[in-house]
C-alpha cells in the first residue's frame, strides 16, 4: 500500500535528527505526488456540498429582514465562516494517513520501525506534513477558483495580531488532527477493520469541530460544553481567532485548552502505541 515504507532510509550514527526526518519529508512529498489527481478530484468535489450549504444559508437569510443576524452572524459573516473552514480544512485534514497507518500495522510494515532508530510517530508526522503540502497546493486550484467568486466575503484577520495567532492555532489544529487520526488508526493493533472507528470518530468531529455550522449558533450551554472537548480546536477555534470572533480572556483560554489537548493527545498516542506493541504479532513482517 505504502511504497514509502519499503525504501531504505540511510541512517548513519552521525546523521542528526533533522537530516533523518527531512529525508522522510522529501520522500513523503515524492510519494504523495502520485495522489495528485486523486487530491484534485477530492478538493473539487468537496466544493459541491460547500456551495450547497452556502445556498441553504442564503435561502434562510432571504426570508428574514435584511441585516438579520443568526446567532451572531450576518449572512456575510456566515459565508466568511464557511470559506475559512474550507481553507483550514484543506490545510489540516488527514487524507490517507489513517488508512495508511492501519495498513502499516496490518501488513507488518511497522516491524522495521522497531529495528531502526526511527520513531514511528515522528515518521508518520513527517508524512502527514508532506501530504498536507501536496494536498494544499493541489486544492489551491479549485478552492482559489471558488474563493474568487465569493471574494467579497473573504475578509482578512480582524486585527493585526490575527496574522500571528491564526497561523499558530492552525498549526496546533493540524497537530491535534494528526494525533487523533494516528491514535484511532493504532486501534488496528486490536481490531480487524479500523474503518468503522475512523468513521465514528469523524462523525463526532464533523459536528463538534464546527465543520457543519459555527458552534456559537447552538444554545449557549451546549456551545460552552463543547468548548471543553478537543474538537472545536480543529476548525472552529482557528477560524474564530482569524475572524476576531474569539477575543480577550476567551482567546487565551482557548489557546491554553488547544495546547492542553495537543499535549493530552500526544500522551494518549504514546500510551496506545506502547500498549499496542505488546499485542503486535508482526504478520508478514
Amino acid at each position, binding site marked *: 500500500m505504502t511504497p514509502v515504507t519499503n525504501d531504505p532510509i540511510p541512517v548513519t550514527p552521525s546523521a542528526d535528527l533533522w537530516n533523518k526526518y527531512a529525508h522522510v519529508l522529501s520522500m513523503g512529498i515524492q510519494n504523495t505526488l*502520485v*495522489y495528485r*489527481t*486523486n*487530491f*484534485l*478530484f*477530492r478538493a*473539487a*468535489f*468537496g466544493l*459541491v*456540498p460547500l*456551495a*450547497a450549504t452556502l*445556498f*441553504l444559508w*442564503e*435561502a*434562510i437569510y432571504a*426570508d*428574514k429582514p435584511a441585516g438579520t443576524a*443568526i*446567532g451572531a452572524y450576518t449572512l456575510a459573516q456566515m459565508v466568511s465562516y464557511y470559506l475559512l473552514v474550507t481553507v483550514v480544512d484543506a490545510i489540516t485534514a488527514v487524507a490517507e494517513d489513517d488508512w495508511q497507518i492501519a495498513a502499516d500495522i496490518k501488513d507488518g510494515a511497522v516491524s522495521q520501525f522497531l529495528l531502526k532508530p526511527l520513531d514511528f510517530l515522528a515518521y508518520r508526522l513527517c508524512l502527514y506534513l508532506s501530504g498536507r503540502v501536496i494536498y494544499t497546493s493541489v486544492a489551491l486550484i479549485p478552492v482559489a477558483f471558488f474563493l474568487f467568486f465569493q471574494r467579497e466575503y473573504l475578509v482578512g484577520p480582524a486585527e493585526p495580531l490575527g496574522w500571528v495567532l491564526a497561523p499558530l492555532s492552525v498549526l496546533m489544529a493540524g497537530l491535534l488532527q494528526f494525533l487523533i487520526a494516528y491514535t484511532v488508526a493504532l486501534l488496528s493493533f486490536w481490531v*480487524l*477493520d479500523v474503518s*468503522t*472507528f475512523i*468513521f*465514528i470518530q469523524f*462523525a463526532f468531529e*464533523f*459536528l463538534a469541530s464546527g465543520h*457543519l*455550522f459555527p458552534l456559537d*449558533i*447552538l*444554545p449557549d450551554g451546549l456551545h460552552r460544553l463543547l468548548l471543553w472537548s478537543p474538537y472545536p480546536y480543529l476548525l472552529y477555534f482557528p477560524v474564530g481567532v482569524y475572524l476576531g470572533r474569539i477575543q480577550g480572556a476567551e482567546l487565551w483560554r482557548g489557546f491554553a485548552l488547544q495546547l492542553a489537548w495537543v499535549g493530552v493527545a500526544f500522551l494518549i498516542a504514546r500510551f496506545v502505541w506502547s500498549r499496542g506493541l505488546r499485542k503486535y504479532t508482526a504478520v508478514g513482517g
Partner: protein
Amino acid sequence: MPSFSRYAGIYAALIRYSLIHEMQFKVNFLLWIVVEALWFGLQLAFMTVLYGHTDQIAGWSRWEVVLLVGCNQFIQQLFHTLFVTNLSNLSELIRKGTLDLLLLQPVNTRFLISVKKFEIGNILNALMGLVVIIYSLAQLGRVPTLAQWLGFAVVCLAGLSVHYSLMFLLACISFWTVRAQGIVWGYYNLFNIARLPAEAFPRGAYRAVFTWVLPMLLVSNVPAKLLAQRLASPWEWLALLGMAVACFVVSELFWRFSLRHYTSASA
C-alpha cells in the same frame, strides 16, 4: 436470451454467500450499522439546529425537511445495500485484473459486477429512514393513500436507478485512471446535496446541472414531495423517471465503450 429465473437464482446464491461472509465478522457488522445511524443522526441534528433559527427554508417547514432527510436516507441506504460496495470495488477489479475472470463467466458482466456483494446491514438503516418518514408524516398530519405509497415506491426505484447509473458511470473512469478511489469518494459529496430542498437553490447553473445532468435534486426531493402532497405538477415525477432512464442508457453506453478500452492487468 437471459432468463429471469436463472438470474434470480444467481442473485439468491450471491445474497446467501454475502450473508455467510458477513456473519463471520459480527461485531464489525453491527459497528457499520452504528456508523450509518450516527451519520443519519448528524443530518437530522443539522436540520434541527437550522430550524432553531428559522421556521421555514425556501417554503419547506421543519417536518417537511425531516421527511426529505428520511426519504434520502431510505433511498441511499437501499443503494448501499445493493450496489455501493460493488461499484467502489470496480477499480480494484480492474487494477488486479480480476475482471478477466468475471468477463469469462456465462453471465452478464455488468450484472455480476453490480450485485456481487449484498450489504444486509444497510437494510436496517433504510428502515430507520422509513421510520423517520412515517413519524414526520404524522407530525405533518398527512396520511398518504395506497396509490401515493405505490407512487412513492416507483419514484424511489427511479431515484435508486439514478444513483446506481451515475456511480457506475464514475466507477468506469477507472478503466483509464487506475487510482479511482478519489472519484468514487467524490460521489459521496454529490450524495450530500440530495437531502436538501431543491427550492433552496437559486435558478441558475448549479440547480440546472444538479437537476438535468446529475439529477441529485430530484432523487429525494420528488419522493418527499409526493408523500407530503406538495408536488407542483406531474412534470416533477415525470422528470425523475425520464432522468432515470436517460442516466441508465448513458451509463450502459459508457460501459460498453469502456470495455472496448480494457486491457487486462494480469497475464
